[in-house]
């Protein structure tokens, strides 16, 4: 297999509130010998909120990000579910609407760029599964996570809408019964925990305006995992991570029960199994302490 190479769209969170996600992404890519070319020109994806305010502007900005991946001739990988949603949604809309694509390209033309639609947009989770292969991960595991019950938390924007799922990678999964993260946990030697909330919402996007709703959803997710004896949770989304890792107090108040679990980024889990150090994976950056390592 030739060396895998992708254009990396980090999103904003990896540069700010989840530095550990950036660190562990690079550490894991190094272990797997995957080359990631960081799209340092990329802007924020709008996180579904700019889209509420100015739809056309969000399309133009996201098309610009993809255009940079296209210039490298590479698949764009995202490491945030919401970046994945908004980038893949932009691609979907432009690829299916020639008139809209032309309008967007008219704007991109002003800065000498063009959106062609030649780069696939996929989350790192699916790049690993589709291109690298879980069997190979399994072979590379040096510290199997066999003593841990690990609860997968998929995050909405990687699994819904399924329409985008089907376009974004080779092994689309059913949003009502997703398996990718479970399979990854198993490949790392861990015991995957099945619980009702694994494919549900963490509430992140309404945190400011609807704190009770958001905290209840976070609480339900943590409680669901705890009730199935999870030792920790794992998620491919830094926004879910922020909610589950830092908001346990509000979540506990909202559902009337103490809930708290260590929550790891998908990359950190792979890194642990592959023998990366605690420092390399930034495990000291968590608010809910990762005390088992």
């Amino acid at each position, binding site marked *: 297999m030739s060396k895998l190479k992708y254009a990396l769209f980090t999103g904003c969170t990896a540069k*700010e509130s989840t530095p550990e996600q950036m660190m562990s992404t690079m550490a894991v890519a190094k272990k797997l010998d995957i080359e990631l070319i960081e799209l340092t*020109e990329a802007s924020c994806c709008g996180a579904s909120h700019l889209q*509420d305010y100015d*739809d056309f*502007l969000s399309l133009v900005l996201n098309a610009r990000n993809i255009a940079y991946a296209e210039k490298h001739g590479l698949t764009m990988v995202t490491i945030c579910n919401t970046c994945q949603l908004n980038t893949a949604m932009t691609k979907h809309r432009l690829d299916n609407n020639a008139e809209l694509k032309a309008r967007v390209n008219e704007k991109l033309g002003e800065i000498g760029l063009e959106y062609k639609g030649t780069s696939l947009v996929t989350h790192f989770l699916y790049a690993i599964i589709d291109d690298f292969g879980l069997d190979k991960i399994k072979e590379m595991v040096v510290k199997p996570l066999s003593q841990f019950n690990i609860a997968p938390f998929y995050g909405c924007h990687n699994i819904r809408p399924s329409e985008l799922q089907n376009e974004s990678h080779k092994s689309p999964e059913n*949003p009502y019964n997703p398996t990718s993260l479970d399979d990854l946990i198993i490949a790392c030697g861990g015991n995957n925990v099945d619980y009702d909330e694994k494919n549900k919402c963490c509430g992140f996007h309404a945190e400011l*305006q609807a704190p009770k709703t958001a905290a*209840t959803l976070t609480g339900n997710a943590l409680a669901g995992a705890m009730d199935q004896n999870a030792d920790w949770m794992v998620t491919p989304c830094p926004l879910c991570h922020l909610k589950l890792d830092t908001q346990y107090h509000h979540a506990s108040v909202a559902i009337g029960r103490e809930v708290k679990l260590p929550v790891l980024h998908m990359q950190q889990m792979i890194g642990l199994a592959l023998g990366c150090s605690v420092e390399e994976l930034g495990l000291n950056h968590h608010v809910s302490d990762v005390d088992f390592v």
Partner: protein
Amino acid sequence: MDNNSITTKDVTFKVFRFNSETDYLPTYKEYKMEVTSEEVVLDILDRIKWDIDGSFSYRRSCRHGICGACAIKVNGKATLACKMNLHSLTETFGDELTIEPQSTKRAVKDMIIDKADFWEKHAKITPYLNSEIEEHPDMECVVSIEENDRIMEADLCIQCGACHYACPVVEINEQFIGPAAFVKAYRFEADIRDESHIERLEECALPDQGVWDCVKCFECAEACPKEINPIEKITALHQMIFKDKVYKNGVAERHAVGFAHSIKKHGLLDEGQLVLYSEGPSIVKHIPVALQMFKKGKIVMPWNMPKSDNLDEIQKLIKSSSTTKY
């Protein structure tokens, strides 16, 4: 139809049984059946009622995915019983299927639920065309094909409630209007003949009940059996709130606008400034969590805020491509 292509499968059904008049708690009754590749969930409901237990209750009518009466959930997936092929369900969930009403907490008897909240939410958003038309008009009210296209999809809603009872916010916040009624609101908001535009939009923009409380989980898009994509209509309502200046400068509205400001300045989102801009003085309530995050190196100070390369391009695009003003 070539009968040879029909296959069969043994499936175990766990069916929610409850009578609100006599039962304290529901039970799940197990039925093992041989199911053909031709059968839909409604066939199983019929077989349970006709062959096994006549007291089993569910709603059904058209059997063509038009009336919306038979909406239920199978393994948590919202669907119309008359549309959902059983073999395709077993491909997703395996050979054990749990059949439940749309909302177990609203169950009256077995699959039948009390949909009162669903209709109350509809009533809130003036679910009809409001137009002063003369009793004897001289000509018809002309709607162009393009104008009709805007409402076509939303007009296909059969009010089955699949999206409403799949919405996690509806489950938590009783005031939240919910995706189905928002689709209905959009249907009339986007209708050029309607004259209640601003009043209806104001109803949709209110805190707690309005579109700002949507968590953007896309459960509604996945649930809709008519592929109407409710969240797309909710997003369109958000955009109308800005376009028609119905906003009240609330935290959610400033949060959306704040993205544009931040991208203009940094290319990236300045998370701290966004919360400050959105919350104003109320930011104090975030201090305890912010302090915990700060200790763990999760807060970037304004003077250390990273910027996108070629920021001038982004700024140029913001100038040339912005379509909304706040």
